[in-house]
């Protein structure tokens, strides 16, 4: 099977736009969590989120913008950044050999809410003719394909918070199996809306630390009280090794393995012992024939929810045994918040950067570590040369996706 490498990083995140800004912000331990500005959140129990600061008009024609939900706008911006970072101009590619696989957990929530209001107030005949094509989840990949004329396989992963990793894993298979030579893959999300924040809040899934936004996302601490909603997109250029080599591309890392599983347990709660998560990690290692001891770093799912963080730590211990104590494990969500379907995308970028630059990003806000969770969570950025790193993503519904990256 063909080897697959990462040659471009498109990061649109709450702590930085562009891979360099994102990398610097991680090393500075910057938090992207702020009071919500997108809408008036004063009546909600949760009034904080991690918004991205970007002007879509700098990237997308004004006329086209009106018919794009924000989640598609973000995907287009991240795809642009990824291609630019890869030094690829679409003209030098065989368009029939380039695929697109950018997923979303939720899709066009903002559009859905706006058009529901139109429907209820003015009736079915006033629904925008753009409602469906703006809202449906497949449109991120479809618009990237349209914009650049890429005619290879175009698909969509929709696995809630595992989406970004799932999309990258599926893209890996596309290239391994010879369906495409280059794939733009990752995740996008734009769910900082009244309905989505309200709905996650009533599930008690979100942190209510409204008075201290920058401290609200605090994975693996005793005082963690839920995740913080983030938004943005992470799109990577995955490329067949031979293809990248031939054009003299900068290679950041190899995407060496992918593992998936289901908890088969509950609609929102993870399996209490992290059984499904452990299975997905094991499968990612087996996929690349890598022993647990060869792994040096895990970019954790680590959302800062009480049950999720515990289950993940248990899962890591099951897979790595004694080696778990030597592993560095960090949650970049402590800085970016939880980007749902885009999380796997930007965390893949963070993991690749850790391997490439030899610096592990920190888990910030680790002020009161939970004594039950006794791994090395890297409270400060740390220089370390690591050969293999995992990026974990676990979803509502118990769908798990894990990526294994290798330093080159």
């Amino acid at each position, binding site marked *: 099977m063909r080897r697959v490498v990462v040659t471009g990083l498109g990061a649109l995140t709450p702590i930085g736009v562009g891979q360099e800004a994102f990398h610097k912000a991680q090393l500075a331990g910057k938090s992207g969590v702020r009071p919500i500005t997108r809408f008036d959140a004063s009546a909600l129990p949760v009034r904080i989120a991690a918004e991205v600061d970007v002007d879509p008009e700098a990237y997308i024609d*004004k*006329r086209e913008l*009106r*018919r794009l939900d924000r989640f598609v706008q973000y995907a287009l911006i991240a795809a642009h950044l990824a291609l630019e970072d890869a030094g690829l101009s679409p003209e030098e590619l065989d368009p029939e050999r380039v695929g697109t696989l950018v997923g979303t957990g939720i899709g066009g929530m903002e559009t859905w809410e706006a058009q529901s209001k139109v429907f209820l107030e003015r009736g079915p*005949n*006033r629904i*925008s*003719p*753009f409602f469906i*094509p703006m809202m449906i989840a497949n449109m991120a990949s479809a618009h990237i394909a349209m914009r650049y004329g890429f005619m290879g396989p175009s698909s969509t992963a929709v696995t809630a918070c595992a989406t970004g990793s799932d999309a990258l894993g599926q893209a890996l298979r596309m290239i391994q199996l010879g369906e495409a030579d280059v794939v733009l893959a990752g995740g996008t999300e734009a769910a900082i809306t009244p309905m989505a924040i309200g709905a996650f809040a009533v599930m008690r899934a979100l942190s209510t630390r409204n008075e201290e936004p920058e401290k609200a996302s605090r994975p693996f601490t005793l005082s963690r009280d839920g995740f913080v909603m983030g938004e943005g997109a992470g799109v990577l250029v995955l490329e067949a090794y031979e293809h990248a080599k031939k054009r003299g591309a900068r290679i950041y890392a190899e995407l060496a393995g992918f593992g998936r599983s289901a908890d088969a347990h509950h609609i929102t709660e993870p399996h209490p012992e992290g059984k499904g998560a452990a299975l997905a990690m094991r499968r990612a290692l087996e996929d690349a024939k890598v022993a647990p001891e060869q792994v040096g770093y895990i970019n954790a799912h680590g959302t800062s929810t009480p049950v999720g963080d515990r289950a993940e730590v248990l899962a890591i211990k099951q897979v790595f045994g004694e080696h778990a104590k030597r592993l560095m494990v960090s949650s970049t969500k402590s800085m970016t918040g939880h980007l749902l379907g885009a999380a796997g995308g930007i965390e893949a970028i963070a993991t690749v950067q850790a391997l490439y630059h030899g610096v592990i990003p920190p888990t910030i806000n680790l002020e009161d570590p939970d004594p039950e969770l006794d791994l090395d969570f890297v409270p400060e950025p740390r220089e370390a040369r690591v050969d293999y790193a995992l990026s974990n993503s676990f979803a509502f519904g118990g769908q798990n996706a894990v990526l294994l990256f290798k330093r080159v």
Partner: protein
Amino acid sequence: MTEQEIFEKVKAVIADKLQVEPEKVSLEARFVEDLGADSLDTVELIMGLEDEFGLEISDEEAEKIRTVKDAVEYIKAKLG
């Protein structure tokens, strides 16, 4: 409403819905060929005209409205 007044209002609706410069919206301009509208833009445009003039335009009638002039004449006749 005079024909000129109708034209000015139609022009504003078109400029907004199709995001084109108002100067480009001449009486002769065709929605698809000259102003770059696709099938969904056309639906949105008709909805915009219905709202602006308080009219209901059936699908059959909407089919026949292909230029700015078609729209102005149709609305003028309808408003009587």
